[in-house]
């Protein structure tokens, strides 16, 4: 069992048409709608992953935030790939669920799309991130009414102290039509920010 104070190694937020990485504003585009903004962010962040365009909006949002946060760390070091993923939101995959429902309501015109159906679970977003970064670690996606810092804090701490994971990518990735928000942070044994509930709330609310 690992003991000692855990840290937050970095964080990324995407909301209000802004992308922020560790206090630095990487891009903003106030005028565009959510889908256009995601596409712009994909290009601006040099994501270079054509499968991105096949994802639903929730997966695109979580994938981008995770990629922006993890990419420099994985490139710069012999970083362990034992990074667990613990995500949460309130809307689950509702936006895609509705899209699927629309395609199956008319019995005379019944053509459900397999490419839509595969995203009718929020944890598919975790699969997309795991495929890109070759993570074989534990992952969970929880549904809460609001950003539940206490639960995420304790869950991440449990994973690291019991050595189920070396690091945990945690946070909130939520979207429903044009209302969207991603806030991810990496819990580690290294970093400059204390892994305290108050610090996490501070990062989440001041993003």
């Amino acid at each position, binding site marked *: 069992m690992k003991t000692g104070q855990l840290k937050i190694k970095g964080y990324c937020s995407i909301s209000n048409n802004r992308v922020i990485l560790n206090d630095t504003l990487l891009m903003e585009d106030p005028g565009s709608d959510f889908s256009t903004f995601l596409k712009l962010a994909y290009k601006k962040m040099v994501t270079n992953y*054509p499968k991105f*365009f*096949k994802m639903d909006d929730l997966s695109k949002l979580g994938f981008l935030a995770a990629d922006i946060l993890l990419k420099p760390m994985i490139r710069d070091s012999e970083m362990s790939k034992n990074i667990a993923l613990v995500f949460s939101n309130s809307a689950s995959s509702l936006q895609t669920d509705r899209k699927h429902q629309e395609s199956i309501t008319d019995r005379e015109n019944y*053509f*459900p*799309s*397999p*490419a839509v159906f*595969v995203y009718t679970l929020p944890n598919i977003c975790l699969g997309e991130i795991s495929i890109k970064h070759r993570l074989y670690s534990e992952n969970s996606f929880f549904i809460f009414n609001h950003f539940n810092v206490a639960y995420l804090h304790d869950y991440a701490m449990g994973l690291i102290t019991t050595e189920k994971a070396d690091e945990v990518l945690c946070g909130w990735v939520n979207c429903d039509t044009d209302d969207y928000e991603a806030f991810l942070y990496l819990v580690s044994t290294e970093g400059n920010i204390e892994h305290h509930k108050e610090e996490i709330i501070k990062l989440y609310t001041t993003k």
Partner: protein
Amino acid sequence: MSDLKQELKEKIITQLNLEDIAIEEIADNDPLFGDGLGLDSIDALELIVMLDKDYGIKLTDPKEGKKIFESIEVMAKYIAEHRTK
């Protein structure tokens, strides 16, 4: 037949969200799966739905798709012979 091939290329790009690929980049004999366009198993299912919805062709055995979706050329020939709409 060339109109159908053009139509198929447009549909494949739009319906399979191949954002970075232009119609001119798809040659009639390019393989659609594997090293060609790099389509995957979900795309194959999507193409089966497209055959049904747009051309009235129902594939009862998904394995049939492996031959039919070999290339735009093969696909267009199959659709021209079997379409009901």
